[in-house]
């Protein structure tokens, strides 16, 4: 694809999607399916990891995506990052639709998004120093050599890896888990992205270091007007570090709401289940069992008909939930729930 056709396509996308309304990321009817192969028999089916996701992310806004293991959170993120191609639907960041970009365009697209991946301990190459790790994205994006030292220093100061000279020559194994995660964040920040995608950025860390890293991300978000997508299964941290929560179940977003609206007035039965399973520290917790919905998350190859949560749902409406897939209902402004109870 030549550069000029790309520019044309961008222009069309911008018109279609109405860039001016402040959405920096738009996701429309996104489907990301993985082919399931069987030896000798060709395709055995599809893993519908993301199956019809819609949302807009505003400039400078932090959203959290919560949901059980395997519900498709990382797949959604990797598609936003341009690492996976959408099977159907559209992802666009500031007007660039991923999937329509050539390799040059994709490189530029990726440079707009910083990625903090799930496992900090596997995220850093073990035989590279902090300096080399931070220089790599600059080199790939042709930042002139004489600017690099200054950019690296600035990024390290921002994530409080100071005094900078103490850390530049260190290898990842010489750093604590929290310090390693700071290096990962510095690397994500170094190309001055407009969006940071953080996939379980703190799940491997201690309570205190978790808070420290989340506060750091929050401060960067505010000072740089960054948009942040924070993926987690820990609802308790979400309250303090994001503006909206999206609840994901079996490849779909089942509830989208501002943080306090969701925590105070949860709607979807699955959201209720997540909240009931999350505890604050309290000695009385030991004297009762937690309520947990029966069963396990469904197969993404053969998802249940109708609402995907219906086999586990205590409030299932006979004759409806197993047959028809619920659309999103907006019970209060900005609070959307895909559940027939809110029709």
């Amino acid at each position, binding site marked *: 694809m030549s550069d000029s056709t790309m520019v044309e396509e961008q222009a069309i996308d911008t018109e279609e999607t109405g860039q001016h309304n402040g959405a920096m990321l738009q996701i429309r009817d996104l489907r990301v399916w993985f082919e399931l192969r069987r030896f000798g028999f060709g395709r055995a089916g599809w893993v519908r990891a993301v199956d019809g996701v819609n949302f807009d992310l505003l400039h400078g806004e932090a959203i959290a995506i919560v949901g*059980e*293991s395997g519900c498709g959170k990382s797949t959604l993120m990797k598609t936003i990052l341009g690492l996976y191609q959408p099977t159907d639907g559209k992802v666009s960041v500031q007007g660039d639709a991923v999937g329509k970009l050539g390799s040059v365009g994709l490189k530029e697209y990726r440079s707009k998004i910083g990625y903090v991946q799930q496992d900090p301990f596997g995220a850093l190459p073990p035989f590279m120093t902090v300096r080399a790790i931070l220089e790599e994205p600059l080199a790939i994006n042709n930042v002139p050599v004489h600017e690099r030292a200054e950019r690296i220093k600035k990024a390290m100061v921002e994530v409080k890896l100071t005094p900078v000279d103490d850390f530049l020559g260190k290898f990842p194994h010489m750093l604590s888990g929290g310090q390693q995660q700071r290096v990962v964040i510095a690397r994500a920040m170094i190309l001055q992205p407009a969006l940071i995608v953080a996939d379980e950025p703190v799940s491997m860390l*201690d*309570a205190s270091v978790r808070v420290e890293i989340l*506060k750091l991300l929050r401060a960067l978000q505010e000072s740089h007007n960054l948009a942040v997508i924070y993926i987690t299964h820990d609802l308790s941290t979400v309250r303090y570090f994001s503006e909206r929560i999206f609840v994901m179940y079996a490849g779909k977003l089942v509830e989208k709401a501002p943080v306090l609206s969701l925590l105070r007035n949860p709607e979807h039965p699955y959201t209720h289940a997540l909240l009931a399973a999350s505890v*604050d520290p309290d000695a009385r917790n030991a004297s009762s069992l937690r309520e947990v919905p029966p069963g396990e998350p469904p197969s993404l190859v053969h998802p249940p008909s109708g609402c995907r949560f219906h086999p586990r749902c205590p409030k299932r409406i006979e004759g409806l939930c197993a047959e028809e897939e619920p659309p999103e209902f907006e019970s209060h402004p900005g609070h959307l729930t895909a559940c027939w109870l809110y029709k």
Partner: protein
Amino acid sequence: MTDRSLLRVEDLVLYFRTSGGTVQAVDKVSFELQRGEAMVILGESGCGKTSLAKAILRLLPRNVHRYSGSVILDDMDVMQLDDEDFRRRVRWIKMSMVPQAAMNSLNPVLRVGDQVAEPMITHFDVSKRDAMTQVRRMFEHVGVPLDFVKRYAFELSGGMRQRVAIAMSLVTSPDLILLDEPTSALDVLTQANIMNVLKRIKKDMDASFILITHDIATSSELADRVAVMYAGQIVEVDTAENFFDEPLHPYSKKLMASVPRLRADQEPEFIVGQPPSLLNPPLGCRFAERCDFRFEQCSEEPPLMDKDGRQVRCWLYAKEYEKMLAREAGV
């Protein structure tokens, strides 16, 4: 020792030899555990929790520099046993462990049922058939569908693999089960399921637990008592009621303040600074450098002190200091 007492650990020490010097991972740890009781060991990464569990179960690496103290289990000091006796009489029989990341270390080429049966077959003289009956009973306890005995680990979800690991620790009916971070890598619903399983087992089997974790909220699901470790030492031992209500040690207080609350609007705070190196821990109180209440006395190492039946390693609770405070208040 009271007649309900199951385990008494006294001055347990485990140091490692490294090229940089001696790592004082477990430094004179003492505590007692009752039958049927669950004790939680809380503390930051690297404070020595796993090393403590390994010291209790004598699962030692090669580079041990010093290993001493007593581990009295049912009135027998198992530290006095030689390795062969320990293996024959203690490990699996009296105590078992669900190691950190157990769910990822199941043998990939063995069916999970056979794997869970293995400790029974090697430690007790039982037939494969009887062992499998016991395995099914354990699967029922921990909520693994019975037809899973024939499956391989990779065919199970993380939560199911963790249940299998727990079933394996129970299959020989030990008195004490050590669980090292059993829920850390799991999502909230799976965590809640596993904690429910542990609660049921505790009730039905009258087993004792040592639960090691840095997840403070989840730990309150099982804890009868709480021990807090900092830099290789125990700094507080308390009942769960006291601890989760208002812990004593300045470190414990900060640890509690770092827990984000879902149901209260209370911005979590992190603990500034880092724990000291275990290569050369400071001579006085190990937390002093990060403590808001530090005073001259803290350059001396505080002992574990009694404060109304609660134990705390902090000079703030020394009798003389409390008297001094009272005097000052009186003036």
